[in-house]
């Protein structure tokens, strides 16, 4: 009797000791065929919270918008010209000022804002509501603040779309492949039944590059670590008056706008 109790206590203590080491479960999972090692990229750009400042004053012509959108959509195999507008897939797109910032509406708003278009994308929120509702953890917040999608886990329930107040997520109502005219062989496409959105070019950051839209924007979009007080973006945020989309919802968007 006593002997048995001791044994149980020993096992419990050993289990607790293992769980307190803080090592990921993979370390102990002996069923995995582990013979190699996994390492990070040495070129990787690191941050506590990636963020973006969009200088709307620098988006003047239609071409300015299209160049940025095309840069993103072409490398990520985002389908284009889907006939049914309701089934469109968008990672980054043009939105009317009054739709992007409904809380800024006011009947005497200067005309130049009323009909202004701004560029919008996933806000990579500090408190992302999409992550809270995802039942499979297919969408989650990475250590560097990116709200990531694991397309392999997405079951297409669309809770995240209902939760996102910015309409940043699109659902593949049909097989997107026929609408991707020039496939980028370096990035996967998607299939019917998954949700997709902007991923802040995590795959480019890992190679030490800036996101595609930032690179194509000719300085109209500034990207960096908003939690690092010495970064360029923090300096821009300190020196300029910026607004975010729907701040009253408390999602903590990390995409800022200079109007």
């Amino acid at each position, binding site marked *: 009797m006593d002997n048995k109790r001791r044994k149980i206590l020993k096992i419990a203590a050993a289990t607790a000791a293992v769980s307190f080491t803080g090592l990921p479960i993979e370390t102990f999972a002996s069923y995995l065929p582990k013979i*190699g090692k*996994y*390492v*990070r*990229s040495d070129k990787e750009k690191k941050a506590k919270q990636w963020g973006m400042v969009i200088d709307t004053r620098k988006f003047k012509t239609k071409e300015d918008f299209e160049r940025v959108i095309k840069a993103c959509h072409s490398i990520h195999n985002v389908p284009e010209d889907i006939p049914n507008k309701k089934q469109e897939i968008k990672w980054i797109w043009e939105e009317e000022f009054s739709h992007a910032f409904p809380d800024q509406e006011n009947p005497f708003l200067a005309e130049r804002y009323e009909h202004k278009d701004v560029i919008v994308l996933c806000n990579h929120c500090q408190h992302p509501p999409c992550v809270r509702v995802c039942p499979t953890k297919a969408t989650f917040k990475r250590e560097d603040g990116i709200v*990531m999608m694991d397309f392999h886990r997405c079951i297409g329930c669309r809770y995240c779309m209902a939760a996102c107040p910015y309409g940043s997520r699109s659902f593949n109502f049909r097989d997107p492949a026929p609408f991707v005219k020039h496939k980028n*062989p*370096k990035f996967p496409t998607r299939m019917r039944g998954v949700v997709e959105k902007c991923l802040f070019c995590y795959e480019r950051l*890992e190679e030490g590059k800036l996101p595609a839209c930032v690179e194509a924007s000719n300085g109209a979009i500034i990207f960096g670590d908003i939690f690092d007080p010495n970064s360029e973006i923090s300096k821009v945020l300190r020196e300029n008056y910026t607004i975010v989309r729907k701040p009253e919802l408390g999602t903590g968007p990390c995409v800022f706008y200079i109007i």
Partner: protein
Amino acid sequence: MYDKDKIIPGLIIFFFLITFPLWYNLGQAAYESPKPKLPVNVKKCIEDTEWMRANHMELLNEWRDMVVRHDMTHYVNSAGVNYEISLQKTCMKCHTSKKEFCDKCHVKVSVSPYCWDCHVAPEEVTNGQ
């Protein structure tokens, strides 16, 4: 024995049916191992050929989770060689054809990994799609 004339024909029919698969296959071609087309200018896979044959599906699953969920983008194999983790950029750089390589085995053993619903096979690109 009662009902001898029913039981004995019954047993004969029973044995005929139960051995059906054996003699049905008589005279048909024997099973042949699939012959995937191997890369010509490289000699070695990421790990031993034997190990890859048995474990490539689990390696791929692990690769996927490491990149997507743990930000680990490189794999150092048991011999110390560093590979970028990617199905499209790494596996398919050496194995330049899905049809002539992956499919050769998979069709034979009737597995159809759904990976290619999204991942772009080399063929799709050369066909100019």
